[in-house]
Structure formats: structure tokens, C-alpha cells
């Protein structure tokens, strides 16, 4: 899987690339509009992470370029402005998703894998991890070919953990992913813990191994 990161902040690029490489993505970088335009015309990418404000122009120009060249690379816009205008313009120009700064790397990783799944595996919408199979279209989960009933939150949690497998995901990142704006409130209550507990219980009761590890003080890790 090839990912192009178009972003002018070198430190942020470094962090993003390092995290995504752990998921065995190949990451390339463009620091400005000029470099980005060269790269998108020369290569195909599975996913492009596009910062809207770049030193030599606006990221929306690149979206226009992609559209003009009839390229179907998945694009996730990243912006510091969180402006509705940019979001609407970007999505109209063919962007697949929108992420506002600051974000958690696990969130980025989950978005990237969602975009890639949508773009690449037309028809094949199954996510498999050992004995666990997730049907993304039907939103069902099977363990050893047996259906497991999960709530919407538990299902989202499982997908999120699977997209970040073998990496530690903090409680904050999970809370924000599951609840968005409501996450602010969740600080008061250990809401994540009960979701994790239920998910673990349902999966292990269906015969799966306990893959959700608690990492003391930090959060959780989905690993074999």
C-alpha cells in the first residue's frame, strides 16, 4: 500500500509516516504543492493525506489536479482550520474524508485503512484477523464462523482496534473516535473501560483468543 503525505510540517510528517509504516504502508512525502503535483502525476497512491494550507498554495488545487487527471486515489484532507467551507469544497472535489488537526495517530490510521478498503477491495469487504472475521458491508462479526452480536459502539471499537493492531491506542484516542464531541464528557466516567470489557467478553465467549491487551496507564493494544 502506498501513501503520499502532503504536509509542510516536517516533524508532523515524520510522526505520521513512522506510525503508518508500522502498518506496513509505504509512505512518500511532498512538502509543497509543486512536489505534490509532480508525484501524483507520476505515481499511483492508495491514499493521499493532504494538508490544505501549504506554503506555495492551497491543497484544494491538488484535488482539482487529481480530478482533471481522472485519478481515483483516495484522499483524506487534513486541516488546521476545521472550516465547513473547505470541507464542503474538498468533498465536492472528490476527497474521501476530512480530519482536523490535532488528531491522534490511531485515528489517522483508522481513517486511512477505511479509505483504502473502500477504494481497493471492491466486492471484498471482509476484514480478517485470525479467527475473527468482520463483514464491513453487513456490519457483522464472526468468530470461527459463528455470528457475534455487538452493539454499534463495540463494532466501531473493534474496527478501530483492528486498524491499529499491534500498536498501543490510548483511551483518549478511543473515546474521541467513538464519541466525537461527547468525548469531552467521558473524562468524568470510565466509559471506554465498559465498552472494552464487553467487547472482550463477547469475543472470548464466542471462542476467540483474548487479543485486547490492557497496557498499564496508557490504554489498549490489539495483538496476537
Amino acid at each position, binding site marked *: 500500500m502506498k501513501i503520499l503525505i502532503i504536509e509542510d510540517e516536517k516533524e508532523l510528517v515524520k510522526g505520521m509516516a513512522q506510525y503508518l509504516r508500522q502498518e506496513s504502508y509505504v509512505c512518500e512525502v511532498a512538502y509543497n504543492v509543486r512536489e505534490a503535483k509532480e508525484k501524483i502525476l507520476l505515481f499511483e497512491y492508495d491514499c493521499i493525506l493532504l494538508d490544505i494550507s501549504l506554503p506555495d498554495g492551497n491543497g484544494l488545487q491538488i484535488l482539482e489536479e487529481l480530478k482533471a487527471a481522472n485519478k481515483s486515489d483516495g484522499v483524506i484532507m487534513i486541516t488546521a482550520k476545521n*472550516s465547513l467551507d473547505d470541507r464542503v469544497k474538498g468533498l465536492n472535489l472528490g476527497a474521501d474524508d476530512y480530519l482536523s488537526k*490535532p488528531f491522534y495517530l490511531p485515528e489517522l490510521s483508522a481513517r486511512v485503512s477505511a479509505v483504502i478498503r473502500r477504494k481497493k477491495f471492491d466486492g471484498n469487504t471482509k476484514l480478517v484477523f485470525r479467527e475473527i472475521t468482520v463483514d464491513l458491508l453487513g456490519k457483522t462479526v464472526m468468530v470461527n464462523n459463528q455470528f457475534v452480536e455487538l452493539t454499534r459502539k463495540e463494532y466501531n471499537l473493534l474496527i478501530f482496534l483492528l486498524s491499529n493492531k499491534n500498536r*498501543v491506542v490510548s483511551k483518549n484516542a478511543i473515546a474521541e473516535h467513538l464519541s466525537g464531541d*461527547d468525548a469531552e464528557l467521558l473524562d*468524568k466516567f470510565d*466509559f471506554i473501560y*465498559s465498552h472494552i470489557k464487553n467487547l472482550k467478553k463477547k469475543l472470548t465467549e464466542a471462542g476467540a483468543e483474548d487479543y485486547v491487551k490492557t497496557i498499564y496507564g*496508557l490504554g489498549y493494544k490489539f495483538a496476537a
Partner: protein
Amino acid sequence: MRLLQRSLRTLLLYSLILVVLSIPVSLFSIREILNEEVDENLDLHADQFLSHIKKFTYLDDLETDLEVLDQLSYNIHIRPSDGRLIPEHFETISVYDSAEHEYRPFRQWSSGVDIKGKSYILSIQMSLVDNDQLVLVISVVQTVLIVLLVAGLLFLNRSLSRKIWKPFYDTLTQLKAYELDKSKPIELEVTNIVEFDDLNKTVSLLTDRNRKVFLQQKEFIENASHELQTPLAIFLAKLDLLMQSPTLSEADSITLMELEDTAKRMSRLNKNLLLLSKIDNEQFVEKEEIEISTLMHELFNNLRPVAGLEGITIAFQAEELVLLCSKPLIEILLTNLFHNAIRHTTSNGRVIISFKERILTISNSGQPIQMTPEKMFERFSKENTSINSTGLGLAIVKKICDTCQYALNYRYEEGMHHFTVKF
């Protein structure tokens, strides 16, 4: 008191004094002129009478004739002298008017005269204008004058204040309506009157300068918030990477999480500040029709399990209402109010949300607050320094209510905080 009323008052007082003073003055001068005129007439009359008498030769019995004359004539009296020498003189006398049964003023010329060798006293009288009548007429005329003067001045004053002071009142109206945070600058007309143009120029200059400073400040807050997002993103990314290290000690892990919590809080602060400046900048002008009880229901359903964890019960009741408003703003308004209620409810407390007759009431149990309700809606005013809260939630609620012209109120009753919003 208005400026023109003040000057008018002085003018009126002056005119009044003048008019009142003019009554005796005119009375006196008119009387003098009349007397003079009458005296001249009497003089002429006497002169002619005497010369005629001297020329007449057919008078048979002068004494009898003169007596007849004295008896018959109304205004000529001639009597034989009693020997006293009477010089020629004028005087004003009162004579009884038998027809009208009253005394009337007369001017009388008298003198001792010599007719055909005999001494007589001749007096000739002429009626004068009645003093009372004169006073009456003059008073009436002057009163009419006063009325006309006052009415005229009042009318002129009103039309003047309307015309001449129009630019001033225009400026005043604009200044009253002027709001620094509204995007429209003040626009003042050119009046061609030096004082007003000067005033307008100064006012424009002052408001323009204030606006510029205000806009710069607003822009600065927005830019600062934007610029902070990227370093924050780097900070969070590095923390996420550090978390993957297998050699972290437990103490390191806890420090790491504390760092992440802090970063998260900073990011939230930033987002709320941005939101405030966006509302200020009127970036939520698009309105649509929204059925808000559905919106409330969704929020309620999301929050109920969260609140349930702490044993907080939420009672919810809402009437349907379609409102023309900005959807993001309404969502933020409701979310912030609901969150605020839940956040400040202690374990096993209760929250009551009711929406009827366009009034949303959100009540939650809790201790009374120390600060005033006004202070509560200000930015960064927090009762306790809980990490959770940015201190901006209610400020945002207030800002949205101000922008959309909803009435926001707070009261504390029977151990519960009540927030009401009238849509």
C-alpha cells in the same frame, strides 16, 4: 432639556418682559400724543370762537346771548368773571355723561377773556379716549402679540430643531445603534455645516480606529488558534509514537498519559476559542428549518448511558417545534447545555430536560454557585478547576443565544440549577 428649548426659554422670557413693559410705555406715549393733538384743537377752537365773537355786530344783548350759548352748547362754556384773573391753561377733567350715566374724561381749555369790554371766563372742552378703554385695547393687542410671538417661536423652534439639528440626531441614532462587533461600519452624511461635519469626522475616526483594533484582535485570536493546531498535532503524534515503545516504565506511562490529557485539553480550548471567533465572524449564517425536539432526543439518547454510569438520572420531555436556524449552532448550543448539566451533577443526582412552549429548561441538582450568573457566562470563569472543563462552554452558549436572539436565563431553586432558553 433640549439645547434649543433652553435658548427658547431665554428668548421667551426676554420677549415677555419687553411686551409687558411696552404696555405702560405705549399707554403713556399715546396719551401724550392725543393730549397734544386735542390741546392744539382746543387752542384753534378758542381762537376762532373769540375772533368770531369780536366780529359779530348783530348781538343785541350780549349778556343774554352768551348765557344762551353757555346753556345750549355742550362743549363751550362762557360765564361772567367774578373778578379773578384766570390765565390761559389746559386741564383734564371728568364730566358726568347723563346719557351713559358715567364720568368721561375731557380736556378743557380755560382762560379769562374780554368780550366787548366785559370780563368772562371761557372754557372749551373736548372728549378724550377713555383711559380704561385705552388700557384694555393696548392690553388686548399686546396679548395677541405675545401669543403670536410664543406660538411662532415654538413653531420655528420645532421646525428648526428638526431641520438644523437633523444631522446631529442622525449621527446620534447611528452611534446608538453602533455595535463594535457588527460588521457594518458607521456611515455619516456630509452636512455642509462646519460643526456637524467636524463632529462626524471625529466620530468616524474614533469608531474606525476602534473597529480596526477590534478586528485585529479578533483576527489574532483566530490566527493564534489556527497556528497552535499544527504544533499540537505534532505533540500528539509524538506521544502516540512514544506510547509504542516497549521499554516504558509504569511511571513513564502515567506521565505520558498526563501529557496526552493536557494536550487534549489544550486542543479543546483551542477548538472552543476558534468556535467563538467563528460565531463572532458570522460564519454560521446559513439557516434551515430544523425540528429541534428530534435533535434533543438524539442528544439525550447519546448521553443517557454516559450519565447512567454515575447514577445520574435524566428526565426528558420535549414538544415538537420547527425552528429556522443554523443547524451547527443549535447543535452546539444544545450539546453544551446538556453537557454542562451532566458535568456539574454529582453522582446519583438528577437532570431534568423539558421543552415546551418554545422554552427549553435544563435543570440539574447541585450545590449553589458562588459567582453571579453574569460572571458564569463569561469566558474562562470556572468555579472549580476541573480538568474537564475549558471554561468556555457557557460562554459559547451565551454567544449563540446573543447571535440568534434567544433569551438565556439562569436561576437556582430548591437545590437545582435551572438554565432556560426561550427560542
